[in-house]
């Protein structure tokens, strides 16, 4: 068990190292001087651009040798210093990220967990009921092929703009202040529901298909046949099949994380939800590269942590990894 987690930890540390290096290298590898590019994109006038030039040179530390820049980059990172924001003047990138992160997590965590649980349940049910299989499977295929952006657009258009059931834009009504009042919680939930539903539905399709196929595969395997031949109740056989099918689904969870995070970003943009996705679009529109680089690191670190949690859960669920039988 410890060896398994150790191997994974080393992999994640390496990945983090690579990601930080990419984050450092990309602005410096791109054609032309990054600072000139930055300034021309900000479209400042000449006196301002000269000041900006000095400011950026200092911020980037471009007057120093490359290896020292690289060390400084890590040093800044260790202090949580991701640079100043251009899109939101006066705020630092880390402040902005800390303010936006809770909203994105509020969407992502319930959407991932609930779609995983519901998808597995429904998929397992579909695997043994023909009627359910013929209805759930096509729907699941359509859902999993739907772009997050588009489902968000359709839900926003129908349920918010046409029927007026749900509000859009923001995480709560503008007249409200964040507080533990009934009014605020209701407003928050009303704004939260549609983006959550978008993420839930698309992810649900994938889990249902995966579980359905795995259960069918497991029910045809030798141990299932043997149990049936022994006269075991089919409920028990299905229980064992489910237990075995959950393992590949869990490794799938780790792989699917990146896609769901990507989906959350664009969904937030459609609904004007003030999370990381909205931060990205603001950064892109204002050419705020510090912000973009900070968000990039945040997403990677987030996905790595989530992967690690899945690995730990895997160890708890799978007796083979627990006993150290399976190396990787």
């Amino acid at each position, binding site marked *: 068990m410890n060896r398994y987690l150790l191997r994974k930890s080393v992999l994640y540390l390496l*990945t983090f190292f690579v990601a930080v290096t990419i984050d450092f290298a990309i602005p410096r590898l*791109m054609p032309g001087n990054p600072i000139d590019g930055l300034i021309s994109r900000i479209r400042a006038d000449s006196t301002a651009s000269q000041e900006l030039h000095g400011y950026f040179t200092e911020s980037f530390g471009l007057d120093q040798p490359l290896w020292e820049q690289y060390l400084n980059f890590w040093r800044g990172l260790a202090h949580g210093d991701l640079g100043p924001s251009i899109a939101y003047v006066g705020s630092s990138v880390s402040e902005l990220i800390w303010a936006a992160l809770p909203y994105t997590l509020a969407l992502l965590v319930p959407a991932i967990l609930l779609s995983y649980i519901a998808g597995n349940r429904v998929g397992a049910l579909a695997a043994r009921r023909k009627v359910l299989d013929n209805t759930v499977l096509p729907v699941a295929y359509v859902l999993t092929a739907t772009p997050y952006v588009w489902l968000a657009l359709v839900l*926003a*258009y129908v349920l918010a*703009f*046409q029927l007026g059931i749900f509000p859009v834009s923001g995480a709560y009504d503008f007249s409200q202040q964040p507080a533990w009042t009934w009014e605020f919680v209701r407003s928050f939930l009303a704004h939260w529901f549609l983006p959550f539903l978008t993420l839930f539905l698309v992810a649900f399709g994938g889990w249902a298909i995966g579980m359905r196929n795995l259960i069918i595969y497991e029910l045809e395997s030798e141990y299932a046949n043997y149990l049936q031949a022994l006269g075991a109740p089919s409920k028990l056989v299905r229980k064992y099949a489910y237990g075995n099918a959950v393992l590949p689904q869990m490794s799938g969870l780790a*792989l699917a*994380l990146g896609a769901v995070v990507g989906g959350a970003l664009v969904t937030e943009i459609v609904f004007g939800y003030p999370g990381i996705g909205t931060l*990205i679009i603001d950064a892109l529109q204002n050419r705020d590269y510090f912000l973009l680089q900070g968000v990039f690191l945040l997403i990677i670190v987030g996905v*790595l942590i989530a992967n690690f949690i899945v690995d730990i859960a895997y160890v708890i669920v799978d007796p083979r990894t627990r006993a150290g039988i399976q190396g990787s």
Partner: protein
Amino acid sequence: MDAAESRADPGPRGQRFELLHFAFHNSKLVIGLTVVLAFLLLAIVGPWLTDATPFEFGHPTGQGPSSENWLGTTAPGQDVYAQFVHGLRSSFIVGALAACVAAGLGMAIGFIGGYLGGAIDEILSMVTNIVLVIPTLAVLIIVSAYLSVGSLTSEAILIGLTSWPWAARAIRAQTFSLRAREFVSLARLSGQGTTKVIVQEIAPNMSSYLFLTFILLFGGSVLTAATLDFLGLGPSQVMSLGLMMNTAVSNAALQLGLWWWFIPPGIGITAIVGGLYVMNVGLDEVFNPRLRST
């Protein structure tokens, strides 16, 4: 598949007909293929059926579908049908190109790692696992923000460069299991070089698997491209389905109720990707006799 069959002489003709028989009787394959081909046809022929071009203004502004503009017009007065069919073209081009790049990389890394094993395999697996964990979209966003992608080709290459890891891992696993088979050992003992063994012995024996991988990469690339285009990170001079949704949102199509502007691109993407996925399951059943009974 072709190369392998034409060499093994006695049964191939019958075997091929048998495969075709199962292909035509597999409803999933037929449905998926029909949907994909229908949209492919629309992407090829569609632009010729109208005089309108995707970026040209001068049509009525924000009008619903009519005999003049089949899918209506955008708020600034562009023809939605022209945008849609050109967008479909972009989707197919980016999807196919990106899948080629990703499949090429995945095959190269998977074959080499799985066949050679040892230290090279360890290193390649490590690289694969690292790229696998890094969320594709985050890398694509930051790279294309700096590069400002100008053409479908560069967008496709970028997507292909980030989407190969799972393919490499799957191909490596398959290669690893084939490596120990007698015919591969025989080829190696008879003095054939690594490349020759991989190309002539291993690849043909997993050609159906490679084809399925390509289809999945294709579908995934279409979705990724749509997301990038929606964020405004794709080429701005080429119409794409994601760009349609991007301009629809920034021009308040939702508020103005111009549903014909943002509904078609989503249907196009969902149909292509869904068609590919369903086709993939059907093909899997055709290639793999054990799955046929279900």
